């Protein structure tokens, strides 16, 4: 794990608090994390309601001495789908308690705006079901979220290949969160490196200014009709 983290170039590592031993005894996970190098992002994985999430968050703050929190509430044990109602309520409560809240949610543009208004520090919409490796199945909604968000957008869940990460960054996402694709790879360290390159390629392409793409409704399709501006005199060569 330590070498995979290094190869990925990440700055942020999320840990499920439910799996961390908080009683003072040495811990298998935290023992491998250089906390001077990576910011810890405890998560509320396993909670099913806003109330449980707030309790988990307070425990995490005490144990790991950080206000940062990845909020994930999934009452559904089969697909681990985030509960939007509980997540919004928990975000409101946690922001008031001084947490830096990064909620994991469906790629729902209205929910993301509501979370932003509630004080979320970022939003983490899913690309596809967690662990599915399907990539950016929610693309059309992610594009809307990115276009209108005033907080960073981190695409979380479902990224199966470095090309998915590159596509997310090209689209304008600020970051991606990856676990299964690296952890379950034949060579996790090499896969972590590949994801780093994917993120760098996507971000560089975005900053370089991607060329336009043809799409439905683009002018090329519409220009079969008669001229619309011939009544305007002069100006055009």
């Amino acid at each position, binding site marked *: 794990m330590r070498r995979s983290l290094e190869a990925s170039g990440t700055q942020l590592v999320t840990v499920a608090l439910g799996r961390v031993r908080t009683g003072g005894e040495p811990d298998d996970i935290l023992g491998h994390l250089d906390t001077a190098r990576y910011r810890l992002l405890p998560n509320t994985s396993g909670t099913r309601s806003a109330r449980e999430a707030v309790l988990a968050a307070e425990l995490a703050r005490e144990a790991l001495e950080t206000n940062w929190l990845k909020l994930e509430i999934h009452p559904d044990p089969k697909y681990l789908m985030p509960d939007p109602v509980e997540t919004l309520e928990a975000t409101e409560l946690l922001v008031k308690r001084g947490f830096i809240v990064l909620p994991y949610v469906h790629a729902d543009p209205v929910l993301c705006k509501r979370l932003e208004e509630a004080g979320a520090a970022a939003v983490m919409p899913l690309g596809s079901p967690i662990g599915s490796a399907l990539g950016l199945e929610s693309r059309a909604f992610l594009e809307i979220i990115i276009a*209108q968000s005033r907080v960073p957008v981190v695409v979380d869940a479902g990224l199966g290949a470095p090309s998915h990460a590159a596509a997310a960054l090209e689209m304008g996402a600020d970051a991606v969160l990856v676990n299964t694709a690296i952890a379950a790879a034949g060579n996790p360290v090499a896969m972590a490196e590949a994801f780093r390159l994917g993120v760098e390629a996507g971000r560089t392409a975005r900053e370089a200014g991607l060329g*336009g793409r043809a799409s439905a*409704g*683009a002018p090329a399709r519409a220009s079969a009709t008669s001229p*619309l*501006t011939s009544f305007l005199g002069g100006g*055009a*060569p």
Partner: protein
Amino acid sequence: MTFTDVWRRHDFGAVSRRIASKTPADVRRALGRPRGSVDLEDLAALLSPAASAYLEDMAQASHQYTLERFGPTMRLYAPLYLSNVCANVCTYCGFSAHNRIRRKVLTDAETLAEARVLRGHGFDSVLLVTGEAGRVGRDYLAGSLRLLRPHFSGLWIEVQPLPEEDYGALAAEGMSAVMVYQETYEPAAYARHHLSGPKADMAWRLETPDRVGRAGVKKVGLGALFGLSDWRTDAWFTGLHLRHVETVHWRTRTSISFPRLRPHEGEEIPVTPFSERDLVQAACAFRLLSPETELSLSTRESEAFRNRAFRLGFTSMSAGSRTNPGGYASAPESLEQFAIDDNRSPAAVAAFLRSQGYEPVWKDWDSTYDGFAERGGARRAAAQALAL
């Protein structure tokens, strides 16, 4: 964060230079974007001199996007001038405090007489317009809204910037939109044209759409008065303002207007160039920037121009406008704010639209939804439909 913070980050002169430096390749890139993906750099390209050669492509795309979103429809509305009393001295406006014209604030009876004429023409949406005066404040406007609410389902205002709580109070009386045009986003030009009165406070005006959005008003209208400064740059800042409203006040609908300086009472002033061709370029650029925003085409423009330009992205038009208080019911007198240039009746405008395959839309909201009992039309219709 209010729009003033956003606006301060962009120097007007630097933006002008950036627009001027855009190349045909920048314009082609902007035109190639998928719908809804045009950003503010693309907007700068679409407003640039380089885009002039691509005006036909812009018009085709604008026409297509508008058809896809709104269908072949055109909302019709009329301004209803309630007062021309004004404490401001502005170089371009007939109501300017120094102009020696007869001043008038409509009484309730006169307002209702205007309403009767406008209803008779078929209008269901009216834009209430006033100058800025102490006695034409929140209480007068609230009274006018209560008076007009039984007669119109769309009640919009274009008055002085108000505090947030006033917008909330007026929305509770049935007001559904606020038009507040910045006139110009260039500080020097703003100071040059707003010589005295409350309107000289540029920041208060810049933040008005924020207050409108926070108060939960359904729609806010933005625009610059073209002719006061460089139109391309003022249009870009209007786009910046639109993006701000779209992201911060995301529940609020938006509309953009393209007022041009018109002849008016008072001294002649220097006017920066803004041609009909430029107006079309600005409107098409806004449609490409925002496929959802409403674009309004004024009766300030000529019949010949409106008959050709209406299909290039516009979604609403005023018709048969009078810009003086009492102008519909009593004999038109020389109290007007500016001269209009399309003198057709509303019926003639509607007939023209129909002849072009467009549906004139008089009503697109029912105040029953707002809980006002005065208009039972939709509620009765719904009850009947449910009984069937």
